[in-house]
């Protein structure tokens, strides 16, 4: 009987601690997931902006030669993404370039 009540006394605090740790983990995971969604949506918006810019600025001459200012399109992509994330600055534009250089296909 003694042991039983000692166990009863021991379990609630232990459960409370476990519960709190689980909640913390849950909260952290939820925040991370939300952040991922935000980054993904901002990247989607930037992608959309870049495509629109490309469609607006693409030039085709009478011989069928197509020219496109890739730098301009890339600039719009970077600007939209960084503004979306609210971290736009000239410095971050340069940093973005060094981490994710534009690839011309």
């Amino acid at each position, binding site marked *: 009987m003694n042991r039983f*009540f*000692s166990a009863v006394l021991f379990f609630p605090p232990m459960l409370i601690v476990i519960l709190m740790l689980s909640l913390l983990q849950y909260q952290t995971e939820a925040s991370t997931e939300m952040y991922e969604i935000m980054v993904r949506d901002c990247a989607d918006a930037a992608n959309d902006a870049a495509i*629109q810019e490309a469609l607006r600025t693409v030039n085709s001459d009478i011989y069928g030669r197509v020219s496109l200012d890739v730098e301009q399109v890339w600039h719009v992509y970077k600007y939209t993404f960084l503004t979306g994330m609210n971290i736009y600055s000239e410095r971050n534009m340069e940093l973005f370039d060094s981490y994710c250089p534009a690839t011309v296909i």
Partner: protein
Amino acid sequence: MATFPSKILAVFLAFLLLTFAPLIIVSLVQDIRTERITWNALTDYTDIVTDKGVLTENDYREFVAKLGSTGLDFEVSVLAKNKMVMPDGSGNFTIKYVSSGLWKSSTGGILNNVYLEAGDSIQVIIKPLSQTRASALLQGVLKLHTNNTEYSYAATVRNDGDLYV
């Protein structure tokens, strides 16, 4: 046999656990739902503006009403930026975005419709002013100070605004 106060304490702790555990779990789930609703409202509003190419009072009110359904207070800022392409003389072009100022915020701003052109940019920033129930609980129970998430989203205008006049 355990002493009487120990039994009382055990029962009290068990009661606390049974009461607060579901309460905290429900609050956290609600918190996540609120975040998702806020973010969806933000992206929806930005999409509407970029499709129409015009910032209108009506759309803004609908957006604020959607945010209000979360039960939280928000500070909303809408920034419209006009795109300028400037030649640098050597055959290349430099793109600059010029902000005509804050179009709208919860504390006021320009009320008239603002017509945008395709290629312009719009940025919407939302800052929660009040605490969610879950963060209040976490702060109260664990003394954790969780910062309110600031939501920001930007997109490029797809159509000229004067098409909708």
